[in-house]
């Protein structure tokens, strides 16, 4: 703001009053002067006229004749008009002496008396009769009744005024009155009137000088007074206007301005009292400003309502955003993301990465050991984005992992997963998925594809090639779809690269797709690299291609290298676990599982039988006594290597330590023998170690048996 409203207003008012005052003073002064001048001219003219008519024409004739006679004689003697300019005081004295006698004439005296009376009556400075001698171009004084000491003698003369000569030659002696300002005489208003005889011929001129010094002095004081009054009135007006404006406009405006500028801070300070600066405004001017104040108050109310709504909406948005972040985090943490994932496995190397787009998406990869010698990899993409896709992804991932089990056909896995996904698919989502299971002992790679991108396989010395496999229908698309597993064999050193469409459909600023050709090229430039380096190279290549453009889809990749076949001795060792309902009918299933792993590890018949009996006794006990009268579960874990078998039995039943049981007396006869406790007794006798602990509500019973033949 260059100039405040107040300054502007004062400036405008000042200029306005100044102009008004000056013009008022000028106009008044002019009017005043003009009217006085007119008045004086009229006055002078009428005095001259009345003098001309009052004087005795005969007397004038006589005096004129005498004066003119003397004058003519002097001119004659002098041989022309005397050079008055060169006259000394003596010359003047001589000159006047020749006219001296005229003043003694009764006609002259009578005329002087009349003129003097007229001069006094009319308050005139000088009143005299003269004669304009056209022959010598001189105005001759006849009778002068001016104030004493200022009057001229008869015969005194002035030069005729040039402008009058022509008019007088035509016989017109009527001259308008005029005003002069000589230093010698001051302000004078002069007028003349011809004195005429009965024939109408001009015999002289009556001349009047009225002093205007007084009135001119009046005029100055009038000017000063007028200016002073105007200035005072102007100042009063300015102050009044300023005061009124201040009170009626500026103060309310400043109040409004202050209240408005304090809107936010007062809102913070007064959140509890609820009274803002604006709501405290009191402006009752009854005009636009009051209306403005009302509007601002209304605006504040509306703003407050709006801010309230906005605040709650923002808070809600923030909450949703935070929850989405958490969801995204949970989603990404569901994927195996610690590498190397299996540091103790020398048979293979695996690396996977997912670069998420802004939103939570539906891409996922997964890899896990199905058992000791089978590694499963999964790559999938749920249609759509956002929370629905993410939730569906979680379901799909869980179902696939859950259904992928040892010796299970992958076609069946996908068929079952598809049916389950169809059941819970109200949103019409679908999943493209690829799953493969690598037998680390043989290199056999079973796979199943549900509408997903085909993998790149890198055979030794051949480079990466897309491996054409028949794709089944997408998962969750239609119930009862049948999926068929395929199979190929990987040699040591072979690699598999699998990805989602986010890779090939990465888009640069020119809207070009990354495409499979570029992917193929970059893969084949890095055939000798580790999976980690390959994914880094592909990601780097995509980033270079995409440049500054936004990422729209998740970029998910997985690379598996089959380094070496599993050594034969590693195959034997293993750990299995089974959880079943604790009923005697399930004992055989447990026994079968345990037997398999024992056989795999070359356990001898006797040890196996003893372990079988132990399983029978312990699980039988849990089935018969642990949960009575309710039902429950039992978990059996068998950790077996070629030397030793450790079996752990876990149930949530009544706490019971079988080791504390007293051993039965084995020396009694058949009739005396009690059958209870015999089973546990047998276990204790046949196993190398037994131990029991009760922890976290669980009975944990562990047996250990050396199985070397």
């Amino acid at each position, binding site marked *: 703001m260059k100039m405040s409203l107040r300054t502007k207003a004062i400036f405008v008012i000042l200029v306005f009053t100044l102009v008004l005052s000056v013009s008022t003073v000028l106009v008044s002064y002019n009017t005043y002067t003009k009217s006085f001048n007119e008045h004086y001219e009229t006055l002078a003219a009428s005095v001259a006229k009345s003098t001309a008519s009052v004087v005795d024409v005969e007397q004038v004739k006589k005096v004129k004749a005498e004066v003119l006679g003397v004058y003519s004689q002097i001119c004659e003697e002098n041989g022309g008009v005397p050079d008055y300019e060169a006259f000394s005081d003596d010359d003047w004295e001589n000159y006047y002496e020749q006219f001296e006698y005229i003043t003694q004439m009764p006609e002259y005296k009578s005329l002087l008396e009349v003129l003097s009376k007229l001069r006094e009556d009319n308050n005139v400075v000088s009143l005299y009769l003269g004669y304009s001698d056209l022959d010598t171009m001189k105005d001759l004084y006849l009778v002068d009744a001016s104030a004493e000491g200022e009057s001229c003698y008869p015969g005194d003369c002035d030069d005729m005024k040039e402008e009058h000569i022509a008019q007088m030659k035509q016989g017109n002696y009527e001259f308008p009155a005029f005003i002069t300002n000589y230093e010698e005489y001051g302000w004078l208003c002069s007028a003349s009137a011809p004195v005429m005889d009965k024939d109408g011929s001009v015999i002289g001129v009556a001349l009047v000088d009225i002093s205007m010094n007084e009135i001119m002095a009046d005029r100055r004081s009038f000017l000063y007074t007028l200016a002073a009054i105007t200035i005072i009135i102007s100042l009063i007006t300015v102050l009044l206007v300023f005061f009124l404006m201040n009170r009626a406009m500026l103060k309310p405006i400043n109040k409004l301005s202050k209240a408005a500028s304090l809107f936010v801070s007062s809102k913070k300070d007064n959140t509890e009292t609820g009274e803002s600066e604006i709501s405290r405004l009191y402006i009752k001017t009854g005009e636009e400003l009051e209306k403005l104040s009302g509007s601002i108050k209304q605006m504040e109310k509306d703003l407050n309502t709006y801010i309230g709504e906005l605040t709650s909406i923002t808070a809600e948005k923030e909450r949703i955003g935070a929850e989405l972040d958490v969801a995204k985090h949970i989603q990404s943490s569901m994927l195996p993301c610690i590498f190397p994932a299996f540091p103790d496995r020398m048979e293979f190397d695996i690396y996977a990465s997912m670069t998420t787009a802004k939103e939570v998406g539906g891409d996922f990869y997964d890899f896990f050991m199905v058992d000791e010698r089978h590694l499963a990899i999964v790559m999938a993409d749920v249609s759509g984005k956002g929370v629905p896709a993410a939730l569906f992804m979680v379901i799909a991932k869980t179902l696939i992992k859950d259904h992928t089990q040892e010796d299970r056909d992958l076609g069946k896995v996908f068929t079952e997963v598809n049916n389950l996904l169809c059941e819970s698919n109200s949103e019409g989502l679908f999943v493209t998925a690829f799953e493969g299971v690598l037998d680390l002992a043989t290199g056999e790679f079973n796979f199943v594809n549900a509408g997903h991108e085909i993998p790149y396989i890198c055979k030794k010395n051949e480079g990466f090639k897309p491996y054409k496999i028949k794709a089944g229908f997408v998962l969750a698309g239609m119930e009862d779809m049948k999926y068929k597993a395929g199979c190929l064999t990987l040699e040591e050193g072979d690699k598999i690269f699998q990805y989602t469409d986010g890779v090939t459909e990465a888009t640069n600023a020119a809207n070009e797709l990354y495409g499979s050709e570029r992917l193929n090229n970059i893969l084949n430039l890095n055939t000798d690299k580790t999976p980690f380096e390959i994914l880094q190279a592909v990601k780097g290549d995509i980033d270079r291609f995409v440049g500054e453009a936004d990422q729209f889809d998740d970029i998910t990749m997985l690379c598996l290298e089959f380094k070496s076949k599993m050594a034969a001795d590693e195959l034997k060792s293993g750990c299995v676990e089974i959880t079943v309902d604790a009923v005697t009918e399930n004992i055989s299933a447990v026994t079968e599982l345990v037997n398999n792993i024992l056989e795999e590890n070359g356990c001898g018949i006797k040890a196996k039988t003893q372990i079988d009996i132990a399983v029978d006794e312990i699980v039988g006990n849990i089935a018969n006594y642990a949960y009575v009268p309710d039902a429950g579960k039992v978990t059996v874990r068998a950790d077996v290597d070629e030397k030793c078998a450790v079996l752990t039995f876990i149930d949530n039943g009544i706490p019971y330590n079988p080791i504390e049981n007293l051993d039965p007396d084995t020396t009694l006869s058949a009739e005396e023998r009690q059958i209870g406790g015999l089973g546990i007794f*047998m276990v204790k006798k046949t196993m190398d170690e037994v131990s029991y602990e009760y922890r976290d509500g669980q009975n944990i019973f562990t047996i250990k048996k050396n199985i070397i033949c």
Partner: protein
Amino acid sequence: MNIQKELNGTNLTINLEGRLDTTTAPQLEAELKSDISGIEKLIFDFADLEYLSSAGLRVLLAAQKVMNKQGSMVIKNVNSTIMDIFEVTGFSGILTIE
């Protein structure tokens, strides 16, 4: 477990094949209950029996008690595993093992 019975007058021979454990012992118990009355000599052939558990022992003990009253009971062709069990549990002192 398979149970084969051979009745020869008052002699009853029972061939057991498989495992005599918690699950299968009740089967044998039921068979014996129906057939044991009037038997004077009960012969168990364990040639094809892999092993037995305490549940099996319980059945054998019950049979032994009955046969002590009405005749005799013999167990034949016991393998070493089962023999160990009999010895560990003191059943070798109660049963007649041939």
